[in-house]
């Protein structure tokens, strides 16, 4: 007898993208949980159906669109049955077996139905003639390519996305193509009439022919192969090949026969479970909350959720997807997403330039973007889609958003079109990755998501500025919008939970240590990773300032060693100089330290402090001891923390100064130093609107005016320059301090770890920040919580380590084997 019980049996019916993506997600979580058998109708591994159009157009080969070749099944111990006779005819739920066409029975403990959809064939007279086909699989593509070699005339019935891609492919293969469409403009499911008309004209220029508002009456072919298409009006169009692309129907016959509840598709709940507790369904055959999806991004989201439940994790839920569409016809740029038609409650922003062939329409529902149609210039499609998915407040963007991301104060990469770049163009400046390397990695390694590309090429994995470019390349290489990650991304690979949920769980369930959080939320790794541990450490510290014992091992080395690690392994040391003020004695003390410890370079920082470079780790406690004796505390130049308050000279010396900006800067820094934040946090006080302290690109900036103080938030001078938003204007220094503390506390409690104030405010909108801070009781409560937290945070970490020998241990080697 074996000690181990036999593995549970998982059977998958359908060897397409949704089913296999689910298995990939499952195997990533628990590779050995099930004995897996997959039944597939086509004689291939799993391929990317979305890319059949480029195969037809001769831009890709079948090999290039394979996702899981036969080796993949073997390597993962999956039995693939896709030969003759392996079509599943019946599910016997009473005995929990599936029965194949050859009569063989395969038992299951859990069953995943991923049967996809079938092309809908119009029941026209002559529909059964030779040369009348659908456009759904590799076999259809081969039939079309064969026809193009032997015949001249093709008719495509259906002017939707799929029909036009088929028509374009056939035209590229030398056929004369006529598209017959029932309504008055093309792609009416994705385009409004203006964009539909522009698309039609552009295709006519390429040689395509159209019959709009036309209905097919019959197909005629006395020889047995189709020869003529007859329209309702009597017109006859010569046709040696007819492709029906009028839509798809979820393939639910198998499930229906087994008595599983179906409507348009197989009805599933938010866990992708059907009405049978042992049977899941994903992909085009599944109907979730009344919707059936025919695009890739939703299938992938469903696959993730389904895998979570197959892996017995039992917490992920699918809440439906927002979808976007791009037409894969080379040379035609078209993007559509969301509610692009609008209704009487929505408003449109429209840009139209017929001469250059550009049309853009944004549909706004209040302060949210509800939909978009772009024709001729789709560079900003993914940005608009992101705004829609995240439900961002766009009231601040409204006047400029039509002109794209590059016009909203973002000096990043918006507005650049990667398709015109050659392979040697550098995309990721941080890691030196060129376009060609990214394209190569995507096609040879079968990558789909931004995270995949980051892992394999390092592109956009450092500062992230080139993320938009990498997403564009992904779209061009793999087709549809795969970057459509769920709007709430998991914190990291150790969990499926997003940041906000984790933070709420910490508070709601009184979780007070990292192991407690990981246990409660079922982390998949024993002690997390370098991404989630620092985040959890911060969230706990922020939630329980009085009780939480900081976990040094969960901090980045800079925060553990209280200095900035340099590329040679030495550290830099920045003592705090409140408001940038210092005395001759301060400077002498710093100079003495620099001499004594042979500091290799001394530099004045952008934040008005002095930086000592090249300090050896083992010398750090002694350096701090000397600096501490001269009255210095840590400058936290290494931390996700309050960095500096930069000031100008102000009314004390400057003939333009309106207030004492230096003294105010000192007070602000005395209030806020030592506080840990989601990310670094910089402040500045300028004594007049000439703004010498550059307060308008700080996280919290103050510009003094004669009548008081303008308070500015959310600025950034880093990767993406962002000018601050005006929060409010106040009259007194006390109010400045209260607002600053309250703002910081709101940021500390609300932002995701490693999210600067600029992207945070862009994500949640300025309105909620204003609302909470202008409400006096709310503001005072936030400020109070900040002060409580500061009581525990304002302990100089340098002094502690300079004075307590037990804290110095980790700065020294455990053993010296170097002579001398």
């Amino acid at each position, binding site marked *: 007898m074996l000690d181990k019980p036999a593995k549970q049996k998982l059977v998958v019916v359908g060897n397409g993208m949704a089913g296999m993506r689910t298995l990939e997600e499952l195997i990533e979580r628990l590779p050995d949980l099930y004995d897996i058998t997959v039944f597939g109708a086509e004689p291939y591994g799993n391929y990317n159906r979305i890319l059949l159009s480029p195969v037809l157009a001769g831009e890709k080969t079948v090999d290039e669109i394979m996702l899981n070749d036969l080796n993949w099944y073997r390597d993962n111990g999956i039995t693939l049955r896709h030969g003759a006779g392996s079509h599943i005819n019946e599910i016997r739920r009473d005995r929990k077996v599936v029965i194949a066409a050859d009569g063989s029975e395969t038992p299951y403990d859990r069953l995943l139905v991923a049967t996809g959809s079938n092309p809908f064939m119009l029941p026209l007279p002559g529909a059964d003639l030779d040369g009348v086909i659908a456009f759904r699989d590799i076999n259809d593509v081969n039939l079309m390519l064969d026809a193009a070699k032997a015949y001249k005339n093709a008719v495509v019935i259906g002017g939707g996305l799929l029909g036009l891609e088929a028509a374009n492919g056939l035209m590229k293969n030398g056929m004369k193509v006529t598209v017959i469409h029932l309504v008055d403009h093309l792609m009416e499911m994705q385009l409004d009439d203006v964009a539909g008309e522009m698309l039609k004209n552009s295709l006519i220029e390429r040689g395509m022919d159209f019959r709009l508002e036309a209905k097919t009456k019959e197909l005629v072919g006395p020889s047995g192969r189709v020869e003529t298409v007859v329209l309702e009006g009597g017109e006859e169009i010569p046709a040696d090949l007819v492709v029906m692309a009028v839509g798809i129907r979820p393939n639910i016959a198998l499930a229906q026969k087994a008595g599983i509840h179906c409507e348009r598709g197989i009805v599933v709940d938010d866990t992708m479970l059907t009405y049978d507790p042992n049977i899941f369904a994903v992909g085009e055959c599944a109907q979730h909350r009344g919707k059936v999806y025919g695009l890739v991004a939703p299938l992938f989201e469903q696959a993730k959720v389904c895998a979570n439940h197959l892996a017995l994790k039992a917490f992920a839920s699918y809440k439906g997807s927002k979808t976007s569409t791009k037409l894969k016809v080379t040379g035609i740029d078209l993007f559509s997403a969301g509610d692009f038609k609008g209704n009487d409650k929505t408003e449109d922003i429209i840009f139209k330039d017929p001469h250059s062939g550009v049309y853009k329409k944004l549909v706004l529902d209040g302060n949210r973007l509800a939909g978009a149609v772009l024709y001729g210039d789709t560079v900003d499609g993914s940005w608009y889609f992101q705004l829609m998915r995240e439900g961002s407040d766009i009231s601040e963007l409204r006047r400029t958003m039509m002109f794209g991301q590059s016009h909203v104060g973002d000096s990043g990469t918006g507005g650049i079109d990667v398709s015109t770049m050659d392979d040697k163009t550098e995309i990721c400046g941080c890691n030196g990755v060129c376009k060609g390397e990214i394209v190569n990695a995507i096609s040879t*390694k079968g990558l789909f998501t931004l995270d995949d590309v980051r*892992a*394999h090429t*390092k592109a956009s*994995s*450092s500062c992230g500025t080139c993320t938009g470019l990498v997403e564009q390349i992904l779209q061009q290489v793999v087709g549809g919008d795969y970057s459509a990650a769920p709007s709430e991304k998991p914190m990291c690979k150790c969990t499926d939970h997003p940041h906000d949920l984790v933070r709420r769980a910490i508070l709601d369930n009184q979780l007070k240590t990292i192991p407690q959080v990981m246990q409660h939320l079922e982390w998949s*790794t*024993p*002690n*997390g*990773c*370098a991404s989630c*541990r*620092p985040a959890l450490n911060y969230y706990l510290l922020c939630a329980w300032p009085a009780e939480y014992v900081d976990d*040094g*091992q*969960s*901090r*980045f*080395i800079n925060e*553990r*060693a209280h200095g900035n*690690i340099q*590329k040679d*392994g030495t550290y830099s040391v920045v003592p705090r100089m409140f408001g940038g003020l210092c005395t001759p004695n301060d400077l002498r003390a710093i100079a003495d330290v620099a001499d004594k410890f042979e500091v290799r370079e001394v530099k004045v920082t952008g934040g008005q402090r002095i930086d000592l470079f090249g300090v050896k780790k083992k010398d750090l406690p002694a350096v701090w001891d000397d600096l501490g004796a001269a009255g210095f505390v840590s400058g936290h130049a290494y931390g996700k923390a309050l960095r500096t308050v930069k000031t100008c000279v102000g009314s004390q010396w400057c003939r333009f100064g309106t207030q004492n900006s230096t003294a105010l800067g000192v007070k602000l820094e005395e209030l806020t130093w030592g506080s840990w934040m989601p990310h670094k946090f910089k402040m500045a006080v300028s004594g007049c609107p000439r703004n010498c302290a550059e307060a308008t690109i700080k996280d919290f900036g103050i510009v003094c005016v004669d009548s008081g103080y303008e308070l500015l938030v959310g600025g950034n001078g880093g990767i993406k320059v962002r000018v601050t938003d005006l929060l409010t204007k106040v009259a007194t220094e006390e109010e400045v301090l209260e607002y600053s503390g309250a703002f910081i506390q709101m940021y500390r409690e609300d932002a995701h770890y490693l999210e600067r104030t600029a992207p945070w405010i862009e994500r949640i909108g300025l309105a909620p920040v204003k609302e909470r801070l202008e409400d006096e009781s709310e503001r005072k409560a936030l400020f109070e919580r900040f002060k409580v937290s500061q009581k525990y945070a304002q302990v100089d970490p340098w002094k502690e380590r300079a004075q307590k020998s037990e804290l110095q*241990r*980790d700065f*020294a*080697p*455990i*053993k*010296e*084997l*170097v*002579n001398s």
Partner: protein
Amino acid sequence: MMHIEKVDSGGKLDGWIEIGPVTDIAPLGSRVVRRTEGNIAIFRAEDDRIFAVANKCPHKGGPLSEGIVHGCRVTCPLHNWVMELETGEALAPDVGKTETFPVRVEKGIIYLQLEPALTEG
């Protein structure tokens, strides 16, 4: 395991060098053995397993001892490569290997050999 009684006061015999008590390294932490041929990072996993690898990431030479330790892995502080402490291999998709050294614990004391471990290649 049987050689413990032979370790002399100089801490060196049969190629095993006494490094120090396990408790001198924080759980999920690391400290360095300094030597002229390049430092060796000694790691302590959560379950007190001890690992010794060259303190040099195969990517750009980052000091692995300063990384965050999770499971039996460490993430390099410079560019986030993740290294398996047992084998010294970089986690896919990154490709690279750092030297590992034989290490063992007797009565709470760590001993190290300075000849890199032989691993199948």
